[in-house]
């Protein structure tokens, strides 16, 4: 039996998670504590890196204490530590990596510097158990929009597509601003969209032409199209619910159509959707519909596990330990542009 501590600070959430790995390879969630600085970023309409980094420094030790209290564990119970070393905001990553190294040295346990995107995929194993491979992961959040082929959670992940401009969550934030809805834009747009007509306005589906990159995404044109539509309408009142519903439909349509097609292309029978945007009601609904029609098993962890947290990094750590992957050196550094193919450093 092995206790693994996970630390995550790649963006605006300070996450500390604890999991237990048993001899059979099963991973059990023991604690998942998150301190978010999202409210401090709201008036800026997006994450301010320096504000996020300051908040991580303040929150690190208190969040760690809360996680151990919640799990009823002592620090000396920890057998290994996993920390996000990329991709993410440089200054934010540095706080988590520095803390993780100090904890690893103090406790005399191995440290795994690991990939945040792989962590998002690993989060699902905390809810739905071992992940069949190969599987396809659709990661959608304010920072990333990617299609990943997972042949082994600890050993082999390949990016087969990504956004060429804005992340899906970023488009939500920008459209929310156009519609005078609060930041972050995901929840208020989802709420408005549920009251609106998704077919009211035909917004463009980016990169869906016959010659466009098959597995890549683009949301910049969609965001601009929404702004243009709203501006053309002004000063008439804006039908916010219909705009939100039509925008959300365009996002969910492209994401699910491309993800399902990639599964079919690659002969993959399981799809995982994770990241903050995975909490979106229409994305989940449409993905479920299209996966069922294509005979694909869909797995979406609960929203709490989809957003950035330490539990996902602890879960990834459990897979690294179980796979016998070599631990990182204590001079590891954060890599803001760590490619997903590098699962641990």
């Amino acid at each position, binding site marked *: 039996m092995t206790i693994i501590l996970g630390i995550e600070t790649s963006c605006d959430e300070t996450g500390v998670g604890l999991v237990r790995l048993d001899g059979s390879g099963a991973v059990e969630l023991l604690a998942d504590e998150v301190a978010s600085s999202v409210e401090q970023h709201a008036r800026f309409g997006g994450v301010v890196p320096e504000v996020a980094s300051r908040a991580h420094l303040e929150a690190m030790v208190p969040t760690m204490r809360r996680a151990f209290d919640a799990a009823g564990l002592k620090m000396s119970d920890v057998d290994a530590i996993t920390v996000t070393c990329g991709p993410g905001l440089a*200054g934010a990553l540095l706080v988590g990596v520095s803390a993780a190294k100090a904890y690893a040295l103090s406790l005399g346990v191995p440290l795994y510097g690991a990939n945040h995107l792989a962590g998002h995929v690993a989060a699902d194993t905390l809810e739905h158990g071992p992940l069949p491979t190969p599987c396809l992961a659709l990661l959608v959040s304010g920072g990333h929009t990617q299609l990943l082929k997972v042949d082994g959670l600890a050993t082999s992940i390949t990016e087969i597509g990504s956004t060429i401009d804005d992340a899906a969550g970023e488009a939500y934030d920008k459209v929310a601003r156009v519609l005078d809805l609060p930041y972050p834009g995901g929840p208020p747009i989802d709420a408005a969209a549920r009251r609106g007509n998704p077919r009211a306005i035909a917004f463009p589906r980016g990169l869906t032409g016959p010659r466009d990159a098959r597995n890549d995404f683009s949301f910049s044109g969609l965001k601009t199209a929404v702004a243009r539509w709203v501006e053309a309408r002004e000063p008439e009142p804006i039908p916010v619910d219909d705009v939100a519903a039509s925008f959300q439909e365009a996002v969910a349509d492209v994401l699910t159509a491309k993800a399902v097609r990639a599964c079919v292309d690659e002969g993959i029978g399981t799809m995982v959707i994770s990241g903050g945007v995975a909490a979106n009601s229409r994305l989940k609904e449409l993905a479920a519909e299209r996966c069922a029609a294509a005979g694909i098993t869909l797995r979406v962890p609960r929203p709490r596990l989809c957003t950035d947290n330490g539990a996902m990094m602890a879960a990834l750590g459990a897979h690294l330990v179980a796979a016998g992957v070599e631990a990182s050196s204590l001079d590891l550094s954060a890599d803001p542009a760590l490619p997903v193919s590098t699962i641990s450093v």
Partner: protein
Amino acid sequence: MLVLAVDTATPAVTAGVVQVGDTVRVLAERVTVDAKAHGELLTPHVRDALAEAGRTLADVDAIVCGVGPGPFTGLRAGMVSAGALGHALGRPVHPVCSLDAIAAAVPGEPLLVVTDARRREVYWATYDAMGVRTDGPHVSPPAEVNAPHATRVAGADLHDFGLPLIEPAHPTPAGLVAAARAALLSGAEPGPLTPLYLRRPDAVVPGARKRVSRA
């Protein structure tokens, strides 16, 4: 009393193992001057300094940490490391103004201490002959530094203040521990580990949304 001292408020990545009693005696130290390596090197420096001193973390009675002022990113690497070490080991972490640590290394005459704040500004403070801080810490352009009584300047060589420049250029383990010595020996609970940023984050609240359509 065995003390671990760390500081990352300047381009130096500093860790030292120091014995404190009637005197302050440095058993081992590791210092690398590289403004981009704080996150990478601090923990290895702690490990290596302890090994050279023939001690382990379990032998450490207290930690002293420079809390700036310093350019933000590097400063946090040392502070979060010190906080984590203190938490994991169950030992107190004593904050020290990093400029005070430079001053504590060279008592005896009124002193100006200056470090690099980037953006053509400096962090600075002044000290009397007893090593007591008389002004600062501040952040300002070098031309606005006001140190009428100082006879020497210590810290970074960034500007000609018309005073002889003396060592150290960065906080040293001996200086960090000397600056915290009274607090360490008093046995009192240390104050909060709060960084001295002296500047607000660069962030602008967005104005009215720009139109995307041509008028």
